[in-house]
């Protein structure tokens, strides 16, 4: 374990790893029952299969619509108000011709909104996190299912360790934040 961290702060957190999603879920239930503060889970894949509860899709739809309407409006303004030109004897407000560009711009807005929005709500980019100090944590992006809990004073930490050891974790590590 990290000597550097040891002589600075008290080890006030625990990171427990399990070798399967089921193991992690079971552990989470037990921890909740015992009233521990579960900080975060670190998993190689989504914990819940269905993607529900994210507000991003709504944001992307809104951005897309804004882009479409805005672009369509801009073209209408340009051709009807700002600088009307006789192009091949066609009417100034050639709305069918405006649709393709408006669609593309709308789609672009939605994509950008989705990308930036995703980074925002995922708190990315965040290049350092205390949990990185744990050596076992590297398995989180491979096949390890981890949970991080808050353990204020040493006896809480001891209780937590005993509870977790009962759940056959692949690893239990203390770290500080």
């Amino acid at each position, binding site marked *: 374990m990290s000597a550097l961290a040891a002589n600075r702060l008290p080890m006030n957190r625990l990171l427990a790893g399990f070798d399967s999603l089921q193991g992690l879920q079971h552990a989470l239930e037990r921890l909740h029952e015992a009233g521990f503060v579960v900080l975060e889970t670190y998993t190689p894949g989504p914990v819940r299969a269905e993607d529900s509860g994210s507000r991003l899709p709504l944001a992307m739809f809104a951005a897309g619509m804004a882009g479409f309407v805005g672009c369509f409006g801009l073209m209408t303004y340009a051709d009807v108000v700002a600088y009307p030109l006789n*192009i091949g*004897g066609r009417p100034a407000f050639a709305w069918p011709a405006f649709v393709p560009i408006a669609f593309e711009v709308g789609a672009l807005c939605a994509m950008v909104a989705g990308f930036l929005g995703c980074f925002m709500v995922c708190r990315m980019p965040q290049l350092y996190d205390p949990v990185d100090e744990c050596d076992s944590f590297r398995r989180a992006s491979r096949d390890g299912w981890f949970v991080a809990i808050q353990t204020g004073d040493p006896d809480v930490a001891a209780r937590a360790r005993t509870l977790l050891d009962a759940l056959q974790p692949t690893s239990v590590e203390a770290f500080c934040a």
Partner: protein
Amino acid sequence: MTSREKLWRSLEQAAEDPAFLAHAAQEFPGLAAALAEPLGRRQVLRLMAASIALGGLAGCDAKYGGNLIPAVTIPPNIIPALPNFYATAHVLDGYASGVVVKHVMGRPVKVDGNPEHPASLGAIDVYGQAQLLDFYDPDRSAEIMQGSSPAALANLDAVFSDQRAQLAAGHGAGLRILTGSVTSPTVIAQIEAVQRQYPEAQSIQWDPISRDAGRKAASLAYGRALDTIAHLDKADVLLSIDGDLLSSAPGRLRYARDFASRRNPSRTASMSRVYAIEPTPTLIGSVADHRFIAGPADISRITLALAASILDNAPTTAEPGWLAPLVTDLKAARGRVLMHVGAAQPPELHALALQINEALGARGVTYDLIEPPAPQALLQADAMAALIADMHAGKVRHLLIVDSNPLYTSPRSWGCAEALKRVPFSVTLARQYDETARATTWFVPHSHDWEAWSDARAYDGTVTVLQPQALPLYGGLSAHQVLGLYLAAPPMSTEESVRRIWAANLAGHSTDGWSEALARGVIPGTASAASGARLRSDLRADFRTDLPSGAGAPATGAPGTTIPPITAPGDRLTLLLRADPNLWDGRFANNPWLQELPRPLTKVVWDNPVLIAPALAARMQLTNGDCMRLSIDDASVVAPVWIMPGQAPDCITALLGSGRRAAGSVGDDVGVDFYPLTGLTGAVALGKTRDRVALASTVHHDLLMETPSEILRHGTLAQFHADPHFAATAHSEPHLYRTVPAGPAAWGMSIDLNACIGCNACIVACQAENNISVVGKAQVLREREMHWLRIDRYFEGGVDAPESFFQPVLCMHCEEAPCENVCPVGATVHDAEGLNVMVYNRCVGTRFCSNNCPYKVRRFNFYGYARQQTRPAQSWNPDVTVRARGVMEKCTYCIQRIAEARIEADRDSRPVGEVRTACQNACPTQAFTFGNLADATSLVAERKRSSLNFAMLEGQGTRPRTTYEALVRNPNPAIKATRG
């Protein structure tokens, strides 16, 4: 005209100031060398620099004396940005055609026809317009040469002073003056003066494009030389035998106008009928109602049969089948017929034609005989041959050659080059340091017609005074000045000598009469009167006997040859040598506009392939571009061939004037020189070679033998009488969009296909007016020519004897222009007056507009063509943008002229007046009509109401502003079978 006189005086001084000429000589030592190299891009830039410098030299050299007006104060009657117009004339082989030169800030930028001039009536041909580039040609020589080294005018004076002494001693024995045909009374007077001083001196006039046959025929028929003037507007039936009325005859512009006046049935009550019998396609043949193909062998036989049946009412021979109906037609239209024989035919046929015309009572109605404008040797060719013989014999001691290039144009068999070596003292006066100039002991740069005073007669004798348009760009002397060198007495100013001659005709030598004559471009009352000469009674016995039936004219029309004896050629192949429709006898070879001008029928540019009949090509397995060895006797030439539908199978046609060796950077080694084959009477032998030449033609596809009706509509007079609207729009389709531009004017154009004779005048006019670049052979081969206006040529019927059609195509200025919708940056849009305008500065060059143009009238600057032009900067039209690399361009309806009219209208606060486009101005037949459709009284509006009016590719629904009047032909119902 005060400024003119002042300008002239300074010119006089400048030209005679040896210091100046010396200066001019050493001003551009490198130029001659530079021009010798082939034309690369770097080279071109250097040339441009050189020519600009020359312009500067003309403009701002102290040596011109104090009477040049500095640019800071505006010269009188020159208003910046407003053009001035000065009348003068363009002289070709002696015959003048009136022109008006447009000046901007004292610089000539455009040439138009002179409406006051009988030979022009406002029209102008390609040569006249191309004068602009000849005038500015950076290849024009600027230095006097003695042998091959530059000399100063002083040396020339010195040499001439002792030459005068020598000549005077021998009464001028051995003095010969060789010129082209001269009609200029002033020059003639001067030559006479020289001959008075040196009684033994002789003057020879000679042109390689011979018109001897006509003169000889007149002397046969009337005992003396007479010129024939046709009045085609009076002719109900016109029979043209190998005719050149519309292509190369003097007065062709006037003839074209008269011809067209009888061709559109919706305007003329009685449409004329035109028969053409010819061995090789000509302009009049292509627009004739009946074109009969007859080889040289057949022509005289047919003409004889014709004569027999008309002159002594012999029963018409059965063969060919169309002859009998033709004769009946001629007889029926008695008094309103004209039979015309081309200059290339032997004099006997001309004489027959004169006879037949008299017999049909046409004289005085459809044609007149006049005294020739200028005295001429009966046969120029004989005179020339005699001269060269004398040179060989060493009888010629002193030879002056003016405006003639015998070393290039004379038959090689005469050995002009060797003969010249035996002349101790010879002077060439020419614009370029050309083939002859390099062989004579002295060369003197010839000032351009726009740089000196002179005068010349039109085809009908009318005199025009040629007034200088600018200071000499390159120095040089005029013919008058050089002739002056022979007269001991100091010559008076040429203006004086010209004025003196016309004093009688002009109101008492008063400046007004003179000024008016200069302003109008004609001297009144100088036209020759009709001659009353009577036909020789003993004529008929005279030669028709020694003109055996079935005779032909071998190698006929070969310029400069004596008229060949008429012998029975059997089935041998005859070579027809003709003047090039663009380069004439070769004098225009250094003119890029003319080199890149599509020949009317072949559309070939930058080359002069031999025209052969499809049958012959099939027999010898030839395709366009295959090289053949043409040999007559021991002379031979290797040239590419071009398959010409409608060419007689027993003859091939070659165009003279290409293959120059000392024309200049543009014209050297372009095409093949056929002069080596002139003067030979033998049959031509064809030998296949392995070589091929890539021939650049602006028609890039194989022959198409059908004319799609949605493109070019045509019919017969019978159809027209049955239903005058036979060609007009059947139904008007409903249109989705109704936004028609509502401006003060609605510009539109109507093109009368009945009038178009495919003479190309409009193309050059457009090129000159709109600063259109010349791209060169390599680019034309890659289909990148730039002409905004092109004349499409279609064939219909069999490939051996097709009917041909001309259709000028320019931007149609569609109401619903397909090009506009597809431009992503709005670089081509519609304006309020219905113009489809091209915004060069906005163009990014996607080229989608061209892809989407059904008429393919858009041209693209694949390279920076404008920067590669040899013409100096001051020769461009300042009112038209010069387009940059990567930009699309197209016909603008001469928007700069429209803008000018708008400005005038605003200034005088009146509705916009008449606007004439460049093509319309130049057109000899008034095929183009442009104007304001909103004004119902305008001519264009009237023409659009014509029952023949139709839109090209109507199905595209583009609603073009440019429409056509359908072509109506008037075939003889009796000979429908052999139609075409």
